[in-house]
């Protein structure tokens, strides 16, 4: 059994999905889905343990050996991302029953769990697989499930947002497919390790550069890197709140993983530089994304939209870390991958709680909420402080490594810009804080109680995670450091 963990990681949620359809009752479907989610998380923990102790795991699907068969390859980086995705997936499921109860009709909820599990399976598959076409397949599985998840939002704009994302996402995926096609026509293999071995021989050819360009653009569409981010705010705002919590903490992280995997494991570090000044492009686009998104976030009246733009900014930070091009920079990106999942997961779950009680995410609805829903607002405050990068939260850890990486690389202006971006975060976080704590609840509105435990507990688990990993960052920092070292060849 333990030998088959890599495939079980993906198969369990994949098979659980149609099973949910058979269990037609909402409650049952939820329980079953949560059980599957928890099992998935347990598997990812075991995988991490295995990888840390015995090195990368290679699993041949169906007994067909690589490079002819599809290989699942779990190394430190994959195990790390699997942990994040399955952890968030499971935790959000725990909150899902209550979270969707007011946004999705009960008769349709089993179908919600079906799409959720499909999305989870797809995301996990992208991370676990070692075959590049398999990546495309799982990418499309997760994307299709995502479009369906977003479309389940109450507001009719959710449909439009889902459609837009469908168009943009499919174009991105097709670009990736084109890139894969070029690579295959050059090397004759689809296995990522094999590709890495064969690419240096043909690295100078235009085809290879074109393949790289197509793949990178396609992945950046999925990443929501500025200026390819336009689908994200609508998608996050109009999707059901639980869906936003899940997506914000996982989907873009997996895309970042894919970019890292392609750039470092498949194409090799030197490749990108010889083709385009990719590092410089990432630095510029990342930073512009941070500033533009933060500035737009400051003006948003809808809090979900505000934090959606904040997500675009945070992704910008991750790309800046890659753009620095050093070991510490990559470590910072990987750290922020984990930390941002914690931050945004907590924030959007808290927002789900607010949406549950108030039915709205407009900033006007937040007036006086500090007194009416103290624990929920406290969670939002701590998440906000983490976004700003206050010490003792995970956000500080990410910022430290990111700024350190830029200073080590001598990129002083970038360091300054990163910190200025944090100051913008102060402005938009404080908008929410002021409305919640300084304004009175308007008279005549219904009395609002604190969020139900089913939503509060997962939110606070993530908040405590924020604080714990902000104070004991050794575990994540070392893990990120080792993963980065394995990718970038060691020396910082």
């Amino acid at each position, binding site marked *: 059994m333990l030998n088959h963990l890599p495939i079980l990681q993906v198969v369990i949620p994949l098979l659980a999905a149609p099973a949910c359809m058979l269990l037609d009752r909402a409650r049952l479907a939820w329980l079953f889905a949560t059980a599957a989610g928890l099992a998935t998380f347990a598997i990812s923990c075991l995988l991490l343990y295995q990888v840390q102790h015995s090195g990368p795991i290679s699993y041949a699907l169906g007994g067909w050996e690589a490079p002819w068969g599809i290989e699942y390859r779990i190394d430190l980086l994959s195990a790390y991302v699997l942990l994040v995705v399955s952890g968030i997936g499971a935790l959000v499921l725990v909150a899902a029953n209550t979270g969707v109860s007011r946004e999705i009709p009960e008769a349709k909820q089993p179908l919600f769990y079906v799409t959720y599990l499909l999305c989870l399976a797809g995301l996990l598959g992208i991370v676990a697989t070692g075959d590049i076409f398999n990546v495309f397949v799982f990418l*499309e599985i997760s994307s299709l499930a995502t479009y369906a998840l977003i*479309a389940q939002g109450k507001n009719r*704009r959710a*449909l439009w947002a889902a*459609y837009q994302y*469908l168009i943009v996402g499919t*174009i991105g995926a*097709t670009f990736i*497919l084109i890139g894969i096609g070029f690579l295959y026509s050059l090397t004759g293999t689809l296995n990522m390790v094999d590709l890495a071995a064969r690419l240096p021989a043909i690295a100078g050819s235009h085809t290879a550069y074109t393949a790289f360009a197509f793949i990178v653009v396609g992945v950046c569409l999925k990443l929501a890197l500025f200026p390819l981010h336009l689908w994200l705010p609508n998608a996050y705002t109009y999707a059901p709140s639980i869906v936003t919590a899940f997506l914000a903490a996982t989907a873009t992280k997996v895309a970042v993983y894919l970019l890292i995997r392609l750039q470092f494991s498949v194409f090799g570090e030197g490749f990108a530089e010889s083709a385009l000044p990719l590092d410089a492009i990432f630095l510029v686009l990342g930073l512009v994304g941070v500033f533009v998104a933060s500035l737009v976030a400051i003006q948003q009246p809808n809090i979900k939209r505000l934090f959606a733009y904040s997500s675009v900014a945070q992704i910008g930070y991750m790309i800046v870390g890659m753009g620095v091009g050093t070991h510490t920079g990559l470590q910072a990106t990987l750290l922020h991958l984990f930390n941002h999942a914690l931050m945004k997961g907590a924030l959007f779950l808290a927002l789900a709680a607010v949406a549950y009680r108030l039915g709205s995410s407009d900033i006007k609805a937040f007036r006086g909420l500090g007194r009416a829903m103290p624990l929920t607002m406290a969670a939002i405050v701590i998440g906000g402080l983490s976004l700003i990068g206050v010490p003792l939260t995970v956000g500080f850890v990410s910022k430290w490594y990111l700024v350190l990486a830029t200073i080590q690389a001598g990129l002083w202006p970038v360091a300054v810009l990163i910190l200025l971006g944090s100051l913008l975060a102060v402005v938009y976080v404080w908008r929410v804080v002021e409305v919640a704590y300084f304004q009175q609840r308007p008279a005549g509105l219904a009395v609002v109680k604190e969020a139900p435990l089913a939503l509060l507990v997962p939110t606070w688990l993530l908040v405590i995670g924020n604080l714990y990993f902000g104070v004991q960052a050794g575990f994540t920092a070392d893990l990120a450091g080792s993963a980065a070292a394995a990718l970038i060849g060691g020396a910082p």
Partner: protein
Amino acid sequence: MMLVAHYNYWVVIALMMIGFYVVIVQGNLVKKLIGLNIFQTSVFIFYISVGKVAGGSAPIYDPEVTLYSNPLPHVLILTAIVVGIATMALGLALVVRIKEAYGSVEEEELQARDLEAEDAQQKENQC
């Protein structure tokens, strides 16, 4: 000549551009999906045409045939076609729901209806 010999690539490029153009320029949601489909099809043709081995037959096992075209792209594209169909199905389902919710499938009208709804909301909030 090189140009004529690589006619498959020209077909691919032509279809790709047509598809892309339709997606971006067309305002009708269904037409956008059709453009998307054309775009995807161009990629399918790309893979298949690249997999053709000169003088090889279709990659279906036959004891008398010695040279086959590469079967792998065919397999990959079968998968991709399925993905494309699923995408179309989902896209069309969304269009049906949009039509029900908005009464139109033209992008401009959707945006106009949304703006109207927003204005009405704001007026309501102010009253």
